[in-house]
């Protein structure tokens, strides 16, 4: 198993403050050779010194992370099956399956419960179900929301693309390309202004690179030393277009380095690699060291939206998606990524480390699958919304007038 974390050396000056002696030596060598890639033989060694934090985690914490990955995975699979087999089911999703390790690894480094004034905030621009579960959103209520129920997480007003639960620091999703990172930087700005050690995290996809918001976010986060962690989930496709249509870099993290922000590229399928990079970034932000950028190389197992190409009871979607005109994802590409599955990788690490044995790990998966099925069953029994409630919550108090009847 390869635990390599590729360092992005955009500004050795900043990194110097945070890394050990031998890491500094590595950076000098990198400077001499002019490119990190040319000394890749030293990378693993050098990274051995940046703090392999996950090795020090308690068994309970590691198991909790594994369980979170499983919760996300089985939420996605159960919902896909609902969409494919239950004609009464009205929910939909922009599936996160395949990317579970990213949300899990990042959120495992955050403060997720406690008073609102102390917990860390997460902005999920897209594919929020995974981010929401990792941040601690109540799963049955989320299932009810995604099925437009009155007792759902947001009373049926939001649905999948706009989930939000500030109580656990999940500011939520907007389903947009652009605004979320900038707004997240505003939360980070507030933390700094009021002397809080909270951090703001934004998850955004590869498509976000092209938006002016991306550049504004990084520039201001650096200028003001904001406690912002930008997690770029590069799953290679924005909607139906490969990211090469919108970004000239192979590693989007190169762009962050240009803004003077410490940046790392990690294997987004390996939850502990993600954890290590996130821990480093969170520690830096809490200590007043400013923003960090993490590019997690990952992949989604389903198409951009819904479950075209998927079969009930099977993981992933293959074949022709009628909406995928610009870039068609070859089945071989999807299957190649599925060979490095975040669930399998996490389980294998925990088994190798003796945290769990294989039978217990599989038993745990069965428990979680049942737990998720119960959540969907509960959601399906929740009441539908009252039409008139659509006029509520426009302002803090009162309702607006009905105008549709003239």
């Amino acid at each position, binding site marked *: 198993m390869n635990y390599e974390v590729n360092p992005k050396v955009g500004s050795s000056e900043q990194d110097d403050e945070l890394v050990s002696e031998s890491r500094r030596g590595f950076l000098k060598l990198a400077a001499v050779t002019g490119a990190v890639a040319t000394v890749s033989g030293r990378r693993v060694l050098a990274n051995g010194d940046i703090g392999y934090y996950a090795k020090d985690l308690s068994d309970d914490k590691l198991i909790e992370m594994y369980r979170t990955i499983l919760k996300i995975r089985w939420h996605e699979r159960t919902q896909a099956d609902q969409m494919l087999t239950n004609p009464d089911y009205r929910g939909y999703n922009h599936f996160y399956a395949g990317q579970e390790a990213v949300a899990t690894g990042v959120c495992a480094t955050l403060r997720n419960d406690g008073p609102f004034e102390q917990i860390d905030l997460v902005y999920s621009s897209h594919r929020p179900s995974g981010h929401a579960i990792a941040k601690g959103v109540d799963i049955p209520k989320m299932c009810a929301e995604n099925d437009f129920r009155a007792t759902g997480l947001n009373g049926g007003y939001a649905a999948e693309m706009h989930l939000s639960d500030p109580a656990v620091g999940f500011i939520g999703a907007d389903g947009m390309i652009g605004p979320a990172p900038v707004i997240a930087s505003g939360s980070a700005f507030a933390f700094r202004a009021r002397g809080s050690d909270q951090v703001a995290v934004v998850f955004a996809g590869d498509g976000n690179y092209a*938006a002016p918001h991306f550049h504004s976010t990084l520039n201001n986060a650096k200028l003001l030393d904001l406690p912002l962690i930008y997690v770029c989930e590069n799953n290679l496709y924005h909607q139906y277009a490969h990211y090469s*249509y919108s970004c000239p870099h192979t590693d989007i993290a190169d762009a962050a380095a240009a803004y003077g922000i410490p940046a790392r590229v990690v294997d987004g399928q390996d939850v502990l690699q993600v954890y290590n990079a996130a821990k480093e970034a969170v520690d830096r932000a809490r200590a007043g060291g400013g923003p960090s950028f993490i590019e997690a190389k990952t992949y989604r197992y389903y198409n951009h939206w819904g479950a075209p190409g998927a079969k009930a009871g099977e993981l992933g979607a293959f074949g022709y998606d009628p909406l995928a005109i610009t870039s068609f994802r070859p089945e071989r590409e999807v299957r190649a990524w599925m060979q490095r599955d975040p669930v399998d990788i996490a389980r294998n690490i925990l088994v190798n480390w003796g945290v769990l044995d294989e039978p217990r790990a599989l038993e745990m998966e069965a428990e979680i699958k049942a737990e998720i099925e119960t959540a969907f069953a509960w959601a399906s029994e929740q009441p539908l919304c009252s039409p008139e409630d659509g006029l509520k919550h426009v302002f803090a108090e009162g309702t*607006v007038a009905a105008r549709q009847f003239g």
Partner: protein
Amino acid sequence: MAQKSWMYSVLEAVQYEMREDPAMTWIFELTPPVASNPGKPVINLETEFGRKRVVNTGIDENWMASAVLGAGLAGSRSATYIPYQGALIPFEVIQNVAGKLRHMTGGKASMPVVWIIEMTGQTPGFAGQHSCYEEDTYYAHIPGVRTVIPSTPYDAKGMMVSALRSPDPVVYLYPAGLRTLTEEVPDEQYEVPLDKAAVRQEGSDLTIVSSGGGMPGVLEAAEVLTGEGMSVEVIDLRVLKEMDTETLVNSVAKTKRLLTVDQSYYTLCPGAEVIARVAENVDGARYKRVAFPDAPPPASPEMFLWMRPNAEHIAAAARALV
């Protein structure tokens, strides 16, 4: 002549103009300029004209909107297709630059550009940031920009031809809910004027005025009301800027009753402007306005479908007025 979809009709117009004018460009994101229609050749602007003229860019509506303006200022006709979700990001450059430039330069700036801007959010279950049916109001408010909103494939093609040939910048609103409409559309180019409303049905008891995504519900209600013996005049605005006041005033001078219907929010919806213009010119008329409440569209289909004006709402409002 053939039964054609909305998008096929539009791209047929664009394809012809691009063949005639080798300088003309098209910018898109996510939504390739491709359309097929039974019995007709597939249109694919990207493969036909190449990627220098037809650009698939990143998700950056600010660039798309600004780039076509710059192309226009450089003397190249240019159009862009802004899909759902980003429909108001171009607002700043259209409102604060394009709308003012001709006037500000003493008439020197010429802007042969078209922003095709989708309006989405009539699908129950989307809601929130995924709805923008109110943008007709925002764009209609801008001076110096012609804002049009065709509601049929025939008008979609004819108004696209006029928009591409216009020296003025044009915001061409595309209510995505109408994408499934088909009708007979000529193969050759023809122009539909950028300053005329269309009387869809003549009548003497009541005038109903709507536009874009509001039209199917209005036509459905008009059919029901006609069946009940009411003589209904139906006007499709087609143009929000500059609004065809004459057609509106002539109609209400005859019927003395005006019902406006919008999928946009009630406050400042296009119908509010229609009523104001008519009230200034017609004495003794009665008015009613059907619109989406001043609330963001919620996701729940139960809430959303109750709030969205539909044929039943329109017919009931008409009966109350006559």
